[in-house]
């Protein structure tokens, strides 16, 4: 299973509020 990471953080925060779902926000230096 691959994680579907999202990179549009503003949109993610808006979606979290709408969906009442928490966000896991990863600040990473790993190769993308």
């Amino acid at each position, binding site marked *: 299973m691959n994680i579907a990471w999202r990179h549009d953080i503003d949109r993610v925060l808006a979606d979290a509020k709408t969906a009442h779902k*928490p966000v896991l926000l990863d600040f990473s230096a790993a190769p993308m």
Partner: protein
Amino acid sequence: MYPDERIARFITENFIPARVHVKDQAADFQRFGERYNAQWTPTVLFLDSDGVERHRIEGFLPNDDFLGQLMVGLGQLAFKRGDFTAAQRSFQQVVDTLPRSDAAPEAQYWAGVSRYKGSGDPAALGATAKAFTERYQDSTWAKKASIWK
């Protein structure tokens, strides 16, 4: 960490997964790094649905320790919204399924606190203190629970 099937599944089932890359998204890294005081990688933040940070992991962890911290973070999200039943379930999951992980003593502590907060029964704290006499005796969390004896 993330290629681990258990970790990928846990994240996908419980969170909206979002990533900011230090180089490829430099502007976002600066903006959200300042907003959430994230100055190092890897830093993983647990944000509630209002975008408020409720838990964080800083630095690399091996898979079991990272998965344990993911469960602790999910527990902290539930705890801080007052859902002590869900919080206790998440914390207890660490103790039951990853008892040797670094997160287990912390989870055992918060499972006891969650049980107390949900029930109002101080015996939950006493039982937790007693549990720390049987395992994780040398942890910081055992010291924190020792006041409940």
